[in-house]
Structures are given as structure tokens and as C-alpha cells.
């Protein structure tokens, strides 16, 4: 018989290394902190402790995998809300339990997570998933099991056509394009060029741009494409330059749009660059540097919360959410956390009104009116399970490396 020790040694080294990595990684991960200020001040307002059978709400987020930059903030937002609700006496006197499943950004895992939440945990509603693909993969499971699903993903296919049990809280690109077209009409623009990423986000935007610019009577003088990983778009921009458009509309997510902004500057193109909400983050300004100056884009109001007029219905909600989220997680707030906040709060509002019966929650959700959320003001109805308007977007211009509302 051969001596097994060399193999054992290799094996134990590998296992040891892996364990060290996992434990190290686990410690390095920021853990949600408790809200500073300690427990609620008892003297001011005695809060009754929630009692009885907990109300169970399911959540499916892409906490790991490619969707993690979206899913992790959503998870934090859900944990923050669970904490706050229970400290404030629970829901209808009962404690709230949010069961969060990680779908690892995989459709098959999302299907299993949904079935587990519905059958094993017997939740009364599901919030999420994070991505459009994972959402559409579980739509049928939720429809058949008759469980309300409030997605955080933006694809128009989720709420069009309307499905009885399925809602979504993210703004679609239809609304973003509406906001841009409205601005272009005000400016009297006649000639536009579009350049879009060849991924899902870019192509869906291109489709909307073609449709809505056509309806508004704005001519598309050139239409170009780029691949997500391209590092130079000079060729496409040279073609666009020859057509001499007044504005160039770019639809994509970083880093492509930042490269386009830089290439435009070096080619000396003076047309106004308009971007999508896909680059509404600090990363774009970092990547594009000087070239980001003067770029116009639609974005959620969370980014410009400080600048909103006091008359804006969302201002107070936005500022409070930002303060609470940053205190709870120690990280800057982001739009996706807002989607989870909106979905979950609307579900909780429906539970407060209708109890924990699945059908009653669905009916109550459909009646949601004037819900002031992070993404916008929601007005749901049997014909509209998204309930947002183009006012969910603010139009901002980048000035001195920061966002300012277009006046």
C-alpha cells in the first residue's frame, strides 16, 4: 500500500488555506452596525414590545454573484427596516420577521429560494429579486402559488403585461427616456445621435429612444453601438461627428459612457452629451474626470436630495432614509437600497391595513396611493403594477465634480 501522507499533507494545506481565507474574508466584511444613540428613549414614548406569532415576509436578493453590488445594499435596507419596525412595536402588535434568501444571481437558485419561502417558511409576501432575469424566472411560481411578489428589478417585461400577483418598484427606462425627451423638446432640439451599449440595458434604452424621439419629431442622425468591454469609441464618435448632431445620447453603464465622454473631448465634439441613469453614480465622475463636466443625465432624486426644493414631497423621506441607512451600515446610501426600501415598505403598509393573508395583501397593494418612496411617488392600480411617472427622475448636470439639478 502506498503511503498516504503526502496526499494528506497537500489536502490539509488546501483545507487550512481555504478556511483561513473564508474566516479572514468573513471578518473583513463590514457588519451592519447598530444605530448610534442606543435603544429608543423609554421616557419619551413607551413602545409596547411586539408579541405573538411573527409576521413573516420573504426577501430574495443577489447578495453574491454578479448582482452583488445591487443585492447587498438591498439586504442591508431590509435588515434596517426589520430592526426599526420591531423596535417601534412591530406590525399590528406582532413582531416582523424578514427571511432573506441569497439567489447568487442565478435563475435556478431564485426558483428554489421562492419555493422555499412559499412552502417551507410560509411567508405572506416576497420582496425582490434584485435582477430582471431572476425575477422573471420566479414570476410563474408566485402566480401559481398566489403569493404577492414585489420586485426590485426594472425590466418592462415584469409589469407589462400586468400580472395579478407581481409588482415592481424600480423605474423603467421608458420613464427615463420620457424625462430626456421632455427636456429636448423644451430646448427645441431637432437633431440627435444615439450611441448605446450592446447589453440588455443599452439595447432596451436604444429601443425606447428610437420610439420616443420619433414620436417627438426629433431626427436621429446616426445610431452607433459599443460593446461593454470596449476601451475606445473614437471610430463611432467620428462617424457621429460627421453628422453634426446637436445632442449625443449615450445609454450604458460604466466604464463605456465615461470613455465616450473622454473621447468626445479629445475629438473636440461640442454637441451636448446626455447620459442615462445607468451612470448616476460617483464612479462615472471619477472615470471621466474633466470630461464629465456639463454632462446631463436623468437620475433618482436620492442623489440630489439636498438640492430639492422643500416643496418636493420626497425630500423629507429621502433625507431620513439616507441618514438612517448610513448610520445603520456605515456606508454611503445607494439607489438599489432605495428599491428594496420602497418594495418592502409598500408590502408592510399593505400588511398593516389587511393583515397577513396573501390575497388581502395583494388587494391592498393594488390600492396603494400616493406612497412617498425613495424612487418616486407610487400610485398603483389594477392596470399599473409599477405606479411611477417620469417625475421619479430628476434631470441633473455635472458641475465641479458634483450633481446639480438642471434648472
Amino acid at each position: 500500500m502506498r503511503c498516504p501522507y503526502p496526499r494528506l499533507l497537500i489536502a490539509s494545506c488546501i483545507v487550512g488555506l481555504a478556511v483561513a481565507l473564508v474566516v479572514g474574508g468573513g471578518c473583513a466584511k463590514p457588519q451592519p452596525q447598530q444605530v448610534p444613540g442606543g435603544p429608543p428613549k423609554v421616557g419619551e414614548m413607551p413602545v409596547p414590545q411586539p408579541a405573538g406569532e411573527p409576521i413573516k415576509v420573504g426577501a430574495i436578493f443577489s447578495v453574491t454573484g454578479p448582482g452583488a453590488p445591487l443585492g447587498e445594499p438591498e439586504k442591508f435596507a431590509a435588515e434596517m427596516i426589520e430592526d426599526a419596525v420591531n423596535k417601534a412595536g412591530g406590525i399590528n402588535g406582532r413582531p416582523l420577521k424578514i427571511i432573506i434568501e441569497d439567489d447568487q444571481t442565478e435563475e435556478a437558485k431564485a426558483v428554489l429560494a421562492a419555493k422555499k419561502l412559499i412552502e417551507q417558511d410560509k411567508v405572506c409576501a416576497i420582496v425582490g429579486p434584485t435582477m430582471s432575469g431572476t425575477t422573471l424566472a420566479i414570476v410563474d411560481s408566485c402566480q401559481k402559488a398566489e403569493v404577492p411578489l414585489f420586485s426590485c428589478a426594472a425590466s418592462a417585461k415584469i409589469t407589462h403585461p400586468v400580472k395579478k400577483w407581481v409588482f415592481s418598484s424600480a423605474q423603467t427606462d421608458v420613464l427615463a427616456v420620457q424625462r430626456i425627451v421632455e427636456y429636448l423638446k423644451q430646448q427645441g432640439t431637432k437633431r440627435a445621435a444615439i450611441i448605446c451599449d450592446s447589453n440588455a440595458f443599452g439595447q432596451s434604452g436604444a429601443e425606447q429612444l428610437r420610439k420616443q424621439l420619433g414620436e417627438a419629431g426629433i431626427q436621429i442622425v446616426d445610431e452607433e453601438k459599443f460593446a461593454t468591454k470596449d476601451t475606445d469609441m473614437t471610430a463611432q464618435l467620428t462617424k457621429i461627428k460627421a453628422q453634426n448632431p446637436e445632442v449625443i445620447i449615450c445609454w450604458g453603464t460604466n466604464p463605456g459612457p465615461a470613455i465616450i465622454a473622454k473621447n468626445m473631448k479629445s475629438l473636440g465634439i461640442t454637441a451636448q452629451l446626455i447620459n442615462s441613469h445607468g451612470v448616476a453614480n460617483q464612479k462615472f465622475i471619477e472615470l471621466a474626470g474633466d470630461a464629465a463636466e456639463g454632462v446631463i443625465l436623468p437620475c433618482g432624486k436620492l442623489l440630489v436630495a439636498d438640492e430639492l426644493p422643500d416643496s418636493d414631497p420626497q425630500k423629507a423621506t429621502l433625507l431620513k432614509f439616507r441618514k438612517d441607512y448610513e448610520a445603520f451600515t456605515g456606508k454611503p446610501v445607494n439607489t438599489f437600497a432605495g428599491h428594496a426600501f420602497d418594495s418592502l415598505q409598500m408590502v408592510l403598509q399593505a400588511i398593516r391595513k389587511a393583515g397577513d393573508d396573501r390575497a388581502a395583501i395583494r388587494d391592498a397593494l393594488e390600492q396603494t396611493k400616493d406612497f412617498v418612496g425613495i424612487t418616486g411617488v407610487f400610485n398603483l392600480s389594477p392596470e399599473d403594477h409599477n405606479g411611477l411617472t417620469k417625475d421619479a427622475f430628476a434631470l441633473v448636470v455635472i458641475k465641479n465634480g458634483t450633481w446639480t439639478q438642471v434648472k
Partner: protein
Amino acid sequence: MSAERKREILGFAVAVAIVAALPVVTRSAYWLSIGVFIALHGIVAIGLGLLLGYAGQVSLGQAAFYGMGAYGSAILTLHLGCNPWLAMGAAAVATGLIAYVIGVPTLKLHGHYLAMATLGIGIIVRILFNEGGHITGGPSGLPAVPNLAIGGFAFDNDLRMYCLAWPIVFLQVVFSRNLLRSRLGRALRAIHDSEIAARSCAINTAKAKVMVFVLSAVYASVAGSLYAHWVNFVNPHPFSFPFSLELVVMVMVGGAASIWGPLIGAAALTIIDQSLLQLGHVFPIAEDLDIVLFGIIVVLVLLFMPRGLVRGLSSQEAERRAG
């Protein structure tokens, strides 16, 4: 009846009994869905096991064939109003033809050219799914794929799907087992032991390899069609390279060159994965633990049971008895 045949029948009976027991024990859609996923992954893995274990070739594009079945079913039923069963058959034939076209030139060559070719096919297919406009639904996919049905009886819930998928797995096991005892199977076994010896016995090794490659693609396509008609939605993401790799891991862990090995590998990986996710609720130490653990499992299996769990465990058993 020989002892080997008795053992074979006993093994088959035990497997059928375990599978039949699950719906009796629980009607939870969660457990039944895990069962359906094991069946679907198992169908693909058994095909890949034949290819890896007998033809000695790796395919890194099985996820693409799985996707072709799924998309074939979705496109034919949604755009052309085709009957789902017919769509499933047509998709399998088309996938088989594509595999044949890839297999003929690459399997004549020595070495791992098939791995490279299938890697490329996987990427091309993924791009086609993404860029297929309204035909494939683009990156956001095609919703509302109809269920399979016989007359008015639709396979529209998890119990019914479980009862459809597993008999297909067992049919496939029987078919594959008989195939290995046919002329082609004997040729494959000869290739497995020594390709040069096989060729000197006038075995057309390239042809045998192409046949088994086509078969593995057809199996994957059938599983993909079942997926599409069950989840009622297809998008490009599940059919990309990481899933191809996961399938190779399933086959390696369970053991190629046996029919049950890949199936057990598929079951083991699916169950470990779900257990880890649930364990994460109790010990939230690391969210990417599954990737690390799969790495460890692969290394340990390769070090201690290079022929996979099934052969590894049974040979250790034999060693102990021989003592």
C-alpha cells in the same frame, strides 16, 4: 442470473425507491423542485459522463446545448405556436446536428481540441441568445413559455414535473447502460482503455467519439427543454460558461465512466449547495463559502478518489473486504 446482474438490478431498484419515496414523504414544492433540478442536471451530467469517461473528451459547452434545448422549445412554442413535445423533439434534433458538425472535424484530432471548440461554441451561443432581438427576447429573455401537457393534463406543478423528469432519467439510465453493451459501447470501452489498441482492431474511433458527443448534446437539449417548460421562462444567463464548468465538476465528483456517478455528483452538489445557503442563515460568516467548498471537494476527490465518489467508495469497500 450472474452476481453482477443481480447487483445492477438491486442498485436500480434502490434508486427508483428513493426517488419514489420523496413525494410520499413530502409534497413541499421546495423539496420537489430540488428533486427536479437534480433530475435535469443529472440528465446533462450522465451524457457528459459518457463523453468524459468513455471517449476521454471534455466538453466545456454543455450549458450551451442545454440552452439550445431551452431556447428551441421557447422559440418554437411562442413564435410558431408549435406543440411543446414537438418543439422539444425538434430542438433535440437540431442540437444533435450542431454537435455533429462540431464533432466531426475536432474529434479526428488528438488531444483536447473538443474542449476548445465547445468552449467557443458556448460563447457564440451565449452571444446569439443575447443579440437575437425579438426572436430570443434579447438579454431579458422570453417569458410565458407554455407547460408540457398530455391531452388536458398539464405538467404545471412541481409534483407533476417531478413525476415526468425522473422516469426520463431512468429511461436514460437504461438506454445508456444498454448502449455501453452494444457494438458502439464495446468500441468506447476499448477506446477508454487504449485508443491505439482500439484502432488496431479496426474500430473507427473518431466515429464512436462523435456518436457519444452527439448523444451527450441531445441529452443536454432534452433537459434544457424540460427546464424551459417547467420554469416557463428562458434568458441567456443560466446557459453560460459557469454552468458548463459546474457540470464538469458534477461528473468529476460523482465519477465519469459509470452511469450512476454523474447522477450522484449532480445530487451531491445540488444538495450541498442548498444546505450551505440554509446554513448561512445560522452562521453568516461567509457568503461565498460554496465556491470555496466546491474547490475543496474537487481537490479532495481528485486526490483520494480519482475515479469519483461511486467507484471510490465501492473500491474502498472491496479493499476492506479483501483486507
